[in-house]
């Protein structure tokens, strides 16, 4: 882990990406953005972020698919990337499906901006090989 953690935010809503960037940068976390699942997967393989915050319902590759693709990646370093699902679909079954797809945690939207950075940093700290 570099001194400044780098987080990839994958979300198809620009306002949400901007909010997350503001909140995370405020906590001294570097942010990379991706607007689709495909871009997100490419960014993960290219930039190797320390963790990913991913939306679930996106056009094209969904967050579920993205999580599964990461967890099935041949590269162990990619495969073990911490994933935080953050979705406005807060039903229990969506939460369960996200965890089943390989996400490490789930946070509903709207999220609490005061606790959000710690949530992400916690996942990085708990990273485990996969």
């Amino acid at each position, binding site marked *: 882990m570099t001194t400044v953690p780098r987080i990839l935010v994958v979300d198809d809503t620009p*306002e949400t990406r*901007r*909010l997350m960037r*503001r*909140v995370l940068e*405020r906590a001294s976390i570097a942010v990379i953005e991706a607007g689709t699942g495909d871009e997100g997967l490419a960014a993960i393989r290219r930039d190797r972020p320390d963790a990913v915050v991913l939306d679930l319902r996106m056009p094209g590759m969904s967050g579920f698919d993205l999580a599964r693709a990461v967890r099935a990646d041949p590269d162990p370093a990619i495969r073990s990337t911490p994933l935080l699902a953050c*979705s406005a679909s807060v*039903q229990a079954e969506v939460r369960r499906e996200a965890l089943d797809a390989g996400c490490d945690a789930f946070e509903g*939207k709207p999220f609490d901006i*005061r606790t959000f950075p710690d949530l992400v940093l916690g996942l990085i700290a708990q990273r485990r090989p996969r």
Partner: protein
Amino acid sequence: MGGPVTADGTPAEATPETRDGGVAPGSNDPDRARALLAATNAFLACEDLDAVSREISVAIHEMFGSDKIGVTISDHEGALRLSHAIGFSADEETRIRSALEAGEGSILGVIEGEVLWSDDPANEAFRSRIQVYGARAGFMLPIIGPDGLVGSCSGIYLEPRGFDAAFRSAAQSLAAIASTAIARANAVGELHRQRRRSDTLLELSSLLATTRDRDDVERIVCSLALTASGAPFALVGRRDEVTGGFIIGATDGLRPEQVAGIEQALQASDRPSLRQLLEGALVTRHGEAAVGRGLGIGEAMGAPIVIGERTEGFIAIGAPRGETVRPADWQELLIAFAAVTATALARIAAVSALARQRDVLASEVEERTRSLLTAIAELRLASDAKTDFLANVSHELRTPLTSILGFIEILATGMDGPVNDEQARDLETVRVSSRHLLELIDDLIDIASIESGRIQLQVGPVAVEEVVNDAVETIRPLADAKGVALKVVRAVEGADDQPILVAADRGRLREIVLNLLSNAVKFTPAAGGVVVSLATAPAAGDADADAVAGLLPPRPSVEITVRDTGPGIEQADQERIFEKFVRIASEATPGTGLGLPISRELARLHGGDLTVESSPGVGSSFVVRIPRADP
């Protein structure tokens, strides 16, 4: 001389001396008397006409020493047929048979009951007839039964001789006893036939009682009719529903070409015999007349199988042309068989009608079930669509709310620079309104999930006090801020140290209690109080809830009561508050109007209920009843 000898029907053991119409063989011929007695005893052992005929021949031989002896028995048509002969050559026997067929008995007067003695001047015809067989003397006596001629017995002599009174008397005695013997043999035969027939009918009835199929019935009837009648062939016909005529159901003892011929005859239903059967009449006639020439069928008899008023088929038995048959015996048998068969067929028809009716009902049930399932599936689709729609709405509304609430927070925390008091209050208003909008969305999703039956409780044993205390502590800051006292009272009998376990979804139970607490604090003015009490309730509960729970035995439960000192609720409004979007309180108190309906639905999903008691101006008590966990 020569009046008819009549049998008196007395048993054969009667002594010859007492016999009517005859004189005892006479003391001058004790050998004849002994021979007659021996014959009488021998007749007792005879079970059939062949045996009787043989014994008559033997008696003639013993008593009268005739050179050639012939005994005839009447057939069912009254014609005499040679049944036993002694001393005749094969050619002579054949000649006798054809002479009898040609009606010689009639020519000679025996059939009319005349006794023929060759030494009677009036019997010239008889004298010349027996010369054909080389005889110079002879006699021929009719054997007369109660209903007329049953046979004859004759003896002829190669040498000329006369017949004295003693001879004639002894001969007539023998004829009388022979008549009795024939009657007895006939009775024995009839008895056997009757016994066989009733055995067969019993067998037929019991076989048919368990037969379900018309083909099987016809096959069994056919085969048993053959056995019982002794007829060479049997046939069962059935009514053809299409043509109204007959078709063959089963046959036994017929060659394939005969079956085919009969089939053709049945199709040409213009034959009188078939019409008679269709009209329900018994038919006896020569087979050629009944079914057609060239089939080699002789005598045949058919009985209609009548169900109700309608001929549904027939049973026929018959013999190839030239064979001797006894249709008189068949008639009764056929009628009985037809009756038993009709009963069996009627039963089968009734059973299959019932089965058809049952099938119709079953398919109707199936049809109704299918349309119900379709309706349910459609409803579920609609419900799913509604749920999906609401889930989408929730998602779409939450997404902008995320940035609204997030950026309000960013502004409020001063991340983007200092905020003055007025701006801070403005931001707080936006924040509260946005939060309210969010709650509304959550409640809508909840109520939609409950209504569509998509909500699934994760029920397990839950320590109810933990949940209540947790909810109380969550609400306490709100109560404190408002100056409302908040306390928990435990009113549970017995074991204080034991946790009270309820069968509940912990999260949902917490949601209910939180909702009630937040309402109570919301409506209770400053310096008022909110008391949460816990009590175990007996099995008896709310009648409605029990009805909802169905036939499950009532379960003991726990009651969580949240009592406030708020304004109370008018009696008329006490049920309305559980309706969706109904808000009774003043506009000053915020809320979605969905909290109580959701809480009640959730309580009922647990098998419990949520009820209210309230006195306006005093306060309200909301009671949640949740079943206890099984120990």
